């Protein structure tokens, strides 16, 4: 159990990487690039751009894997505070097409909300690292505040999807820390009570998206159009799919956002249920490997953090696939490791880096 990974030679141990996790993730990444090539009708430039983003993400992963988890724990409050500060700045100085999600630093722009996807789990894990578990009510309430504060700021942008995702990842962290049964009941009651309040704070387009989820056939060309076309893409794929490069829904642009949010449907159209099953199993294997690292971790901070991060990645997977197959409302969330785009890729690889750091620094367990 308690071994030093440096005693095994080789590339991966040198860079403190987990070969199993990396292999599974790289399989998904390759599936994503393959699908992207087909969906873009053979636009190699697009694929190269995506490869560059993946390489940037992997660099971040390798970098973070070198850092000792204690540093994450110690710097969590600082990072969290910076994140909150940036979110406040975004409210005043943010830019963006439909919502002010981006901060423009002249030489580069980024979404502070994306940082919070990592900082919130870090902060919770750090906060609980020296508390008795399961936490007492006071510590539970503090954790909830840690989660809610950024969530409200992000919802204000308005980016309801990300706000909900960050809240969810925080809840995962709390659940993973252990929670008393009575607190679960209390929390559920508060959450249910908050729904009408939340609804009244929502913008119309957010409401319509949620409503369209419950009756997608009512306006096929409106907000339900995305879902209808996504189901057609998947359904026409059948068991073995239409074959690589033969997807009509995605290649003829009937499937909207076909290389970003709806890349799963494009993949399902060409590779069928067999392909889809393999992909879903790969994502489950990512969780298995991540949870195995979490179980083997030697302190509460590492356990909570690695478990939360891996489950949060899976949560993103569930939200995206659930959206494109009609289980969840269309909120506009990318599919980790597959969707075209840089920000999300960077975040998930960074999360992987932190998990790998935890795995490779187990030998430094106290006692």
């Amino acid at each position: 159990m308690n071994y030093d990974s440096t005693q095994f030679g080789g590339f991966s141990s040198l860079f403190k990487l987990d070969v199993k996790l990396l292999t599974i993730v790289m399989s998904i990444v390759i599936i994503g690039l393959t699908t992207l090539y087909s969906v873009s009708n053979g636009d190699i430039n697009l694929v190269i751009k995506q490869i560059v983003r993946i390489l940037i993400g992997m660099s971040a992963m390798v970098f973070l894997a070198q850092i000792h988890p204690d540093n994450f724990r110690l710097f969590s409050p600082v990072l969290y505070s910076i994140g909150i500060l940036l979110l406040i700045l975004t409210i005043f100085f943010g830019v963006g097409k439909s919502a002010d999600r981006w901060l423009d630093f002249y030489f580069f722009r980024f979404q502070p909300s994306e940082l919070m996807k990592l900082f919130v789990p870090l902060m919770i894990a750090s906060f609980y690292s020296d508390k008795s578990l399961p936490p007492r009510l006071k510590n539970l309430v503090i954790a909830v505040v840690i989660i809610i504060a950024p969530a409200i700021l992000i919802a204000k942008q308005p980016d309801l999807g990300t706000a909900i995702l960050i809240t969810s990842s925080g809840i995962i962290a709390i659940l993973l820390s252990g929670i008393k049964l009575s607190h679960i009941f209390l929390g559920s009651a508060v959450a249910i009570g908050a729904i009408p309040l939340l609804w009244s704070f929502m913008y119309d387009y957010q409401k319509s998206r949620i409503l369209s989820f419950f009756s997608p056939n009512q306006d096929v060309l409106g907000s339900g159009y995305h879902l209808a076309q996504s189901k057609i893409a998947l359904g026409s794929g059948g068991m073995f799919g239409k074959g690589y490069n033969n997807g009509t829904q995605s290649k003829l642009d009937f499937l909207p956002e076909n290389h970003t949010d709806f890349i799963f449907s494009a993949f399902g159209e060409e590779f069928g249920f067999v392909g889809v099953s393999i992909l879903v199993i790969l994502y489950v294997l990512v969780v298995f490997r991540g949870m195995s690292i979490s179980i083997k971790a030697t302190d509460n901070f590492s356990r909570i953090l690695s478990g939360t991060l891996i489950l949060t990645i899976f949560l993103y997977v569930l939200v995206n696939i659930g959206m494109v197959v009609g289980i969840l409302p269309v909120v506009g969330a990318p599919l980790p490791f597959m969707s075209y785009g840089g920000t999300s890729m960077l975040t998930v690889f960074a999360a992987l880096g932190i998990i790998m750091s935890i795995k490779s620094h187990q030998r430094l367990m106290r006692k």
Partner: protein
Amino acid sequence: MVSKYRNETIRKKRRFEEKTSWEEINNPIKDRASHKVRALFAVAAVSIIAAFYLSHIYNIQITNHELYTVKSEDNRIRIRPIEPIRGNIYDRNGTVLAESFDTFDIIAKKENIKSVDNFLINANKVFKFNSDQINEIKSQFSNKKLKEVTLKNNTTIEEFTKLSVDQYLLPEMELIIKSNRRYIYPEATSHLLGYTGKLSENDLDSVIKLKDGMTSVGKTGIERFYQNLLSGTPGYEKLETNANNEIIRVLEKKPALKGQDIFLTIDANLQKFSYGLLKNKKGSIIIMNPKNGDILAFVSHPGFDNNLFVNGISSKDYKKLLNDKARPLFNRALTGQYPPGSTLKPFFGLVALEDSIIDKSKYIGCSGEYKLKNYKRPFKCWKKDGHKDVNLSSAVAGSCDVFFYDLAKISGIDFMHEKLKKFGFGEKTFIDLYGEKLGLLPSREWKNQSRQAPWYPGETLNIGIGQGYFLVTPIQLANATALLASGGESITPHLFLMSMNNNKAEQYGYNENKIKIDIDHDSLHVVNESMWRVVYDKKIGTASHLKEIEGVEFAGKTGTAQVYNLDKGKTGKKSLQDHALFISFAPFENPEIVVSVIVDNGGSGSAVAAPIARDVMNFYFKKIKKQVAAR
């Protein structure tokens, strides 16, 4: 500074550990075990959710695979019909009467136009319209039936290429090839050929075989009657399109089959000439071959420009046609109904002779009027002084009314109704045009049913001279005359000569359309001779003033049908003037053509209709026959 901070931290921590033993707060063994339980619980939850997701996807991809496959195909595949080329229409000599040709039009589909105002501004920049053209385009926008706006008709590819330089201003504009229809003699053949137009709801429950992809259809005339031959079969293109409706590729193509060319029995020159003779008049001329039923000319005057209808007539033009007092849209030759007047006399005389109601040598004295019991007013002959002694032959030649009043009185209405039927009065001739009217051959029963009144003896007398309730259509009259000329054996009057399909000719079915009526030849001889006397008996013939046709003798009968039974000239209104009629055939011995002329409110048949018929026959024998012989 740093060491000071660290010392402080360590001190705090010690104090904390003293207060609550670290082991108690953070028991590694216990924490690890309880975390493992929660982690395994999470892994189980992840597995269950993944399985649920896959079952949901299974439902979409496998259970509903067929449904979504259909939807996916519907998305990408569009069927675009290919309009077939409509067959041409020729006259009997191969002269083109109606032809199809391709035009290049610049159009914009309304569905692609987002803002009409912006579109007009940009279109004006490209085309530099004048104000009339802009109004015309605006009216195309307000016409809900049109799916596209035509910016320029009959353009060329070269011109479009020039204009496409400005395509960025007007991305909606596109060039389309349209199959168009052109009528070479628009006015003269308008009632004969009819016209084509856009397929409308009225065409749905008609005899027309509708084929998928047909957009235009024959609306009236020959175009309508032979629609199924002329139209051809539309083809289609199966296209793959993307979400923006742009065509990616053609998946499948089935070419359209061209319609059949049709040759009519019409002689274009004769048709044109006859039409010209009715200039400034209203009326009809039908020229047919009495032996085989071929119609050489089928004229209704005034006609209209049938080219106007092809691409949808403007409401302005249509209103103009509707409001014209001469009623150019009214097909007189087919649907006009007139009292036959004195043109009935040869037919009536013939059936009376056949049934021995009278003898050909029986004379009757005509004093200019005829008295009937119980009628205060006498029945007048057109000739005030009377015809003196007349027999059947001179009564027809001089058109004596008194003779036929007497004959009608002897025959009775039932006999007349019974016997005159055989010439086709009161029945359709079944000429190959739609909309033919029945005319009216009156009878006791008819009057009882339609007027709830008994038949009066005086009415019989009026029927005897082709007046009263009696109505015939010009085509009926021509057909009846053909039976006189041919001795009772003819063929249903028709306009169709043959059709050509891939160089395979299909002739008119002469054998299937024979007409044969029993005519006593001795009686017919008497009647025909009396009709010869109409033209050549200088003493009494009502058309003996006509200039003779060199080398050809013809027979005829004048008719003047009274309108509203009013005294001539009293009202002075032209619309209430008598209809002028003339029926004739030539040459007398072996008739080749029958000419029937009716001039609405033209005055007397002798003065107005007869000279027209004479000119037609003259033209036929002097020009047409020679042309045919030369060919």
